[in-house]
Structure formats: C-alpha cells, structure tokens
C-alpha cells in the first residue's frame, strides 16, 4: 500500500497545481488514512494545504490544515512546527471568505494563532497584520486603520509575511477606502517592480486600475490591466483579483470584459468560498448591465456545468439570475460581520432596477 501512496505522490509532483493534482493527493491521503499511516497522511496533507491554498480551493486547504493541527497537538515533537505556524496565516487569510464561520470563531482563531506564535518565540507582527487583513475582509475599515499602525510598529521576524505582501495589503486598504492618491503612492514600489513575490504585483495591479482611471490616467490604467490580467488569467486562486479587473472593465471597456467573464465564470460557479464568488457575480452583473443598457445584443457563453445554461439566454436573464445570488451572499456576510459593507458596495456598482 505504501508503494501505491508514494507512486501517487510522485504523480502529483509532476502535475501543475490544480484540481487534477489535488484529486491525486486526496486519493493518496485516503489510502494513507485507511492504512493508518499517520505520518505519511500528515505529509500529504501538508502538500494539500499548499496546493489548495494557491490554486483556489480554500475549503480543502482548511480541512487538511485542521487535521494536521490536531495531529500536531497530540504529537508536537513529531512534526515541523514552523511550517504549520507559517501555514496558519494562510488559513486566517481565508476564513472570512466563508459566511458560515462566525465572528467569534474568527477572533478565536486569531487568538489561537497569537498564542501559538508566542509559545514558539515569534512576535506579534503577524497577529496584528492579520487582524488588519481580517478587519478589511469584514468591511470594518476604521478598525483596519488602527491595526495598520499597530502591526507596523512591531519589527519583522521570520514569521512575518514578506514586505511585498504587506505593502500590497496597504494598497488594498486605500483601495477599499477610496483614497486613490494614497493607494497609488503606496503602490509605487510594487508597480516599479522593486517589491515583488509570488502574489505581488498580481493582486496590486487590479487595485490601481480604478484609482488611475479616476485620476484621468486612462492609458496607464489600460496598460496595468493588460499586465495584471496576463499574470492571473489562468489562476483560480485569483478569482477576486479577476473580479476587480471586471469591475474596472465594466467602467472602462465593457465589450472587452465579456471575454473575461466568459473565461472565468466556470471558476466562480464551483468556488468553495462565498466571498470570492460574490465578488465575481457582482462585478459580472455590473458589467452585463452596462452592455444591456447600451443595447448590445450579445450572447454570453455560459459554462456547461451550469445546469440553468442555455445558448439563448439573454443578458437580461443572466443578470436576473446572478444578481440575487450576489445580493443574498452579500447579506449573509453583512449579517456575520454586523455591518452593511458588502450590500453598500453592491449597491454602488450595480444599477438599481
């Protein structure tokens, strides 16, 4: 049995990150579980956490990580603590995307991470930085502003996110508050290429488009859209970033946006977490409305995996189908967060019927 498991792991290694690789890793983990090979199951789950987080399967990642954490607590000297603590941050970055996870649970998770970091001698910069990110995820921008100052006052240690990531989150903050000038100023070292990592500038390029466009830098916005979209167009993990591109195209170039919507809708349909899905549906609706009111008689290709799809669905029908989905998801998140942030946002980008 162990040979089969190793064979599967080897197969997985040769595949690019994505559904196929995850399917094989899950098969391997099932075999390891049924054979009672705990350590091997732990190792494979580490691969799953990694592969799932970076390829747009946050739920799979969360499940695998939960299992690892349970094993680790029973047997801490058996496993690598640093790797687990590092991955804890990824999980915290995703938990807000599920409206079923309560505010209290999210706070408990953050405190749990804080406690574990302290236990292993790491400082509180990641804790405050993730409190900053969580506050943004929950639409609590005033709270986020407070944490923004707090996390930067603690010096970096080896558990801190990289500089480029932290910078990109600051850009995101000003993007959310609509402080365009600050957003562009903070984005400078990223746009110049000085700060970069595996996810930067990818997540930042989409967040300077509207600020640039609003400041009249139309050509620069267009160039950054081209650059940014090219980086992420095949990446399921960047569904929210793709939605930000659609949000910009709805204003700058709706016709060009059709292709982007068609290309990625299938990802949104079976996306594991509601927040990213809501972003996509909402920006898609805003773009289709632009086309619909301009009298554009276009057919949108809908993916075959959507049962409701027929080739002759009109723009109006598609809007009517997806808009309630976006709005009810936003209401769920608002209820969980205790504010009206997401409904307000949808109200802004979607035309009222």
């Amino acid at each position, binding site marked *: 049995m162990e040979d089969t498991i190793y064979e599967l792991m080897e197969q997985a290694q040769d595949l*690019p990150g994505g559904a196929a690789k995850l399917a094989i890793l899950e098969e391997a983990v099932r075999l390891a579980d049924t054979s009672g090979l705990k350590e091997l199951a732990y190792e494979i789950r580490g691969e799953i956490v990694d592969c799932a987080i970076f390829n747009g399967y946050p739920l799979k990642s*969360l499940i695998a990580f*939960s299992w690892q954490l349970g094993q680790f*607590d029973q047997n801490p000297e058996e496993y690598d603590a640093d790797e687990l603590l590092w991955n804890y941050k990824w999980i915290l970055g995703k938990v807000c995307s599920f409206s*079923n996870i309560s505010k209290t649970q999210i706070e408990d998770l953050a405190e749990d991470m804080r406690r574990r970091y302290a236990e292993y001698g790491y400082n509180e910069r990641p804790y405050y930085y993730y409190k900053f990110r969580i506050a943004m995820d929950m639409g609590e921008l005033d709270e986020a502003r407070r944490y923004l100052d707090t996390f930067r006052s603690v010096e970096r240690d080896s558990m801190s996110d990289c500089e480029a990531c932290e910078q990109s989150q600051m850009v995101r903050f000003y993007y959310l508050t609509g402080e365009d000038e600050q957003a562009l100023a903070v984005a400078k070292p990223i746009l110049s290429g000085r700060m970069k990592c595996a996810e930067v500038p990818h997540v930042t390029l989409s967040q300077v488009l509207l600020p640039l466009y609003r400041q009249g830098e139309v050509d620069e916005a267009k160039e950054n859209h081209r650059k940014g979209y090219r980086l992420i167009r095949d990446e399921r993990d960047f569904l929210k970033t793709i939605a930000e591109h659609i949000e910009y195209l709805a204003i700058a170039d709706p016709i060009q946006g059709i292709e982007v919507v068609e290309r990625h809708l299938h990802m949104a349909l079976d996306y594991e977490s509601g927040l990213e899905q809501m972003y996509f549906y909402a920006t898609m609706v805003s773009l289709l409305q632009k086309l619909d009111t301009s009298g554009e008689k276009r057919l949108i290709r809908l993916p075959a995996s959507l049962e409701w799809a027929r080739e002759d669905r009109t723009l109006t029908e598609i809007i009517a189908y997806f808009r309630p989905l976006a709005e009810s998801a936003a209401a769920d998140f608002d209820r969980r967060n205790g504010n009206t942030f997401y409904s307000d946002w949808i109200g802004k980008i979607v035309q009222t019927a």
Partner: protein
Amino acid sequence: MSQTDEYRFQVNLGGMIDILANHLYSSPRVFIREVLQNATDAITARKELRKVAAESNVLQEDKALEDTASESNDYEGKVIVELSGSGEHQVLMIQDNGIGLSEEDIHRFLSIIGQSSKKGADLLASETSFIGRFGIGLLSCFMVSDEIVVLTRSVKEGISMEWRGKPDGTYTIRRLETELPVGTQIYLRCKPGSEFYYEPAQVEESLFYYGALLPYPVMLSVDGETKRVNLPSTSWMQDPDQLRSRRSEVLDLGYRLMGERFSDFIPLRTTSGRTGGIAFILPRSVNLNSKRLHRVYLKHMLVSDKAENVLPEWAFFIKSLIWTDELQPTASREYFYENEQLDDVRSELGTCIREELLRMAQYEPDRLQHWIRLHELSMKALAVEDDEFLRIMYRWFSFESTFGRRELKELIQEADGRPLHYTSTVDEYRQITHVAAAQSMLVINGGYIYDSDILEKLHWIDPNLQTERLSPEEVSLSFTGLTQEERESYYGVLRVMDAALQPMRCRAELKRFEPVSLPVLYTISQDALTLRSMENTVEETTSLFSNVLDSLKAGVQQNSGYSTLYFNLNNPVVARILEATDTQMVTAATEMMYVNALMMGHYPMNRSELGLMNRSVLHFINWGLGNGQNA
C-alpha cells in the same frame, strides 16, 4: 612624434570590475560576447553611416577609403580573432573593420565608465548608445587580462590611436605614426589563472555560441591557420520558409546550437519580418512544470539561451531558436521586458505554430498524430484556450473511457449520435466504471487535467457533438429498475434499509445491474465527499477547529445531498437479504454492506462507521453461532 598623456579614472575601477565579474556576468567567458558585441556594433554603425551617406549622395567615406583600396563600395563587415603565444604569454586579438573610434569617442566612452560606477549594473540595461556599450563591454576584459590595448582608426577622422588601460584605473592614450586600417583591434594578454579562456577550442566555442548567426564572417586564426567560425550563410533568416526544403541542414543546426537531436521543426516569422525563428518540436515528452528555455538572438547576437517568455506558455512542446531586432532584454538578459511589443510577437509566433499544426492535420495526419501522442497534454491545454485549434485537433485527442483509451473520433463513432457521457472527476469515474463497463456503456473519464474542459467545449465547435456530464447518482438510470410487483414486495425491507443508513446520510436503492458479483455500489457526490472528509477531520482536530468545521458543514450540507447505496438484486447475497424477515438481521446486513462498500472504495471510515462495523460483525457471529446450535 608621439605624445603620451597620463590620465586617471575618477572612479574606483577595481570595484567596478568586481561588480561586473561577480554580479553582472555569470562567467568570465562573457568577455568574448562583449568584444564580439563591440565589433558587431562598430560594423553596424559603419553600415548606417554609409547608408546615410549614400542617401545624401555624398560618400564621405571616400577619402578614408582611398587608404584602404581593398575595400570596394559594397562594404562587408568582418571580424578576425587571432590567438598567439602560449601559457602565460598568450594573447588574444580581435579585429573588426567597423566604424573605429576617434579621439573624442575614446574620451566619451571613458567618461561614461565614470558615470556608470554610480549606476552599477543597471547600466547595461539602460545604455544603448554604441559608445556606452563599448565602454562597459570592454571592462569585462579585465576579468581575463591585466592590460587592454585598443588600436583604432575612425572612419571619420582617419587618425590612428592607441589606448592602453590597466585595472588600477590608469590608462594612456597616444596617436600612432603608423596608418591602421579603419576599424578597431583589441589585444588582451592572458592573466595568470585565465589560461582556460584563451584555449583555441574554448574561444572557438564561445565565438560560435554567441555569434553563430552573425551575417558576416567571424574568423579564428590559430598558428597561421584561419577558418570561419560562424555559419557560412544566414540568408534564410529573412525568409525562414525556405528552410522547409533543407530539413537535414536545419536539424543539424538545431543540434549544433541547442545540443539536442530533433526530428521536426516549424519555421516562424512575424508579419513585419522583424522576428523570426525555428521552432524545433521536442522529441521527448516534457513535464508540464519544466521551464521553457528558448534561444534568442537580438540583432544577430545571442542574448539568452534561457529566454522563457518569447513563446506562448502552451508551446511547451517546442524549443525554439529565435532572432529578433525588436525586443528589449532585461538586465539579466534571460527574459524580455513584458511589454505590448512582446505580447504581439509572442502571439504572432504562436500563430505560426498553430497554423503549421492545422496544416499537418489537413495534409499530414500521421505526422501530427505522432506529435500529439508525445505532447498531448500541452496540445489539450492549447485547445482549451483556442476554439479554432480545438476544432481541428479534437478528433485526435485520446481519452480514458470504459472502452479503453481511445481517440475522440472513435469514441464519437461508438456513441453513434448519442451524447458522449463523461465524469468530471477521476473519483466519480472510478465509482461507476465497473458498472458502466459491465453494461458496455460508454463513459469517458473527464477527471484528468483539461479533459472535461475540452468535452464541455465540444458543442461550441460542432452543435451536433453533444456531451453530457454524468454524476455517479445518474448511473442508476442505466440500471434496470424494479417491476411494480417487486417494488411493492420490497417496500418494507427498503424502509428498514433506509433507516439503517440514515445516520450516515446515505439512502438505499434497489436495482438490477451488472456485474452480478457486485452486491452493492456506493455513490457519492463531490459535495458529499467533502462533507465526509470534514466529518472525519472533526474527529481529529482541535476543538476550536472542529467548531469551525461544524459551522462550515452547514453550508456544504445544504447542497451535498445524500450518498446512495445501490443494492444489486441480481446478486444472490442481496437477494437473500431481501428475503430475510428479521428486521435486526436486515439492519445488520445493510450496515455490513455499507462498510464493505466504503472499504472497497478506499473511503476512510470515521468512528461511528467503525463502531457500526464492530456491532454488525458481532451480530453476525452471534447469529451464525446460534444457527449452528440450532442445526
């Protein structure tokens, strides 16, 4: 009447050279690239000058040319590299008949060296003027020589100059009495420890490596023997299509330049003609994650043999030789700047490859089939992106199916107008494959990367090609249902079975299906599968996380539905269970069948399922022993 002046760099040249040697250049051997680049730039500059002069109908060079009568009006560039001496007294001389340097030029390039110390390694990327490049390129020679001597005569001035520089920053400039030919000669004396870089074989290899495509002779002269190092003719670079009729020559070239034996290639050319190339098809399967390393020549000089982004990503079955005069390399020279121009070039080159594949599909299907078999994955990737490509290629793609691994065109024939059924994951396929196979029902495994994407897109390219995604729950459709009579007689026992399975969120169904030996079939949807793994994880994790997972389960539960356990009426054991009248017995047997199905499907069991198995096993032992006593 010669006059020598001492000057001094205003920079720490030692530091500069260190920067160059250790940070900018990957190996000292790049000094060959730099001196060759200087020679090439000088020849290009002279050509430009002549062109301008010819256009204005005043050949200013005439005066200068009187001295070198060997030169006719149709000027051709030439580079000669000469090796002499041995061991520590080895000297490498490189001579070009380019534009040459005037006294003013020399002072200018020296001042540029002065500025460049402030800019550091960025200079090579930013400085594009001939003089600037000359200065910096020359410094790289200090990696292999403790003195650089430059003899030069400018086509514009006609004064012969000598410049001697040392790594400590001192240099001399003087006018020479002798008349040099127009152009530049650079002398390098081997520095102790650098002998390797002066070996004729090394020099020859480097010259070929960097300058194989230079459009004029590059000669190497050793011990009085002179031979041409670069390719004798590169006229085909204007029109790569000519290469089709020179297969063996091109494949040889591929071997010499890329170090690999290819058996097939595709000529590339953009419409402007400013970028062209040869796309060699890799004769081996490539791992999807492997780097695509292309070899790129910029203005005839090698820029990189590791360029990754000149072809579209889907072209990973290609290793190409590209020449261009329109792309901008980055400082490291291993990539090109991602700009609109690169975008255009990349998509044009991609179009060349695509069109060739389409041509093959039409005229040489065997050749195409051979390559598809080798590179199916990348071709499928391309087909997902590109409807046109899919339209031509889909027939040759192969898929795993219950009829074996077959090409799509055969599968379409087999389906005979009926929709093609496929599963969207490998797991789903495995769940139903033995049932479908036993009933000779055609099901395609769409779980491998790109496969279901392709199947989903088929009806976009041909409305007659209907595909249907099959989920394991739907396989039951192909089972034989029960007669009304059977339905009624088994109603009671089915209720008992359902009740037994309810705690596991599973329901029972009675069907008749092949193979007879299979008593039950367990089917579970993707969402239900996720739910299972959550439930199993809840048992293993910390209380905090099990809380979180419990909350999440609510969301998944809504759409996951129940799993289904199909009982096969054709199976004798199942038939006996159904005849049983003892409710406890039916319950225990159902539970046994359930855990058995889980074990067969390699589903890890959670605590309650394991408990269930224990209970049922004990139950059966008891019952068996009891029966034995009664007999």
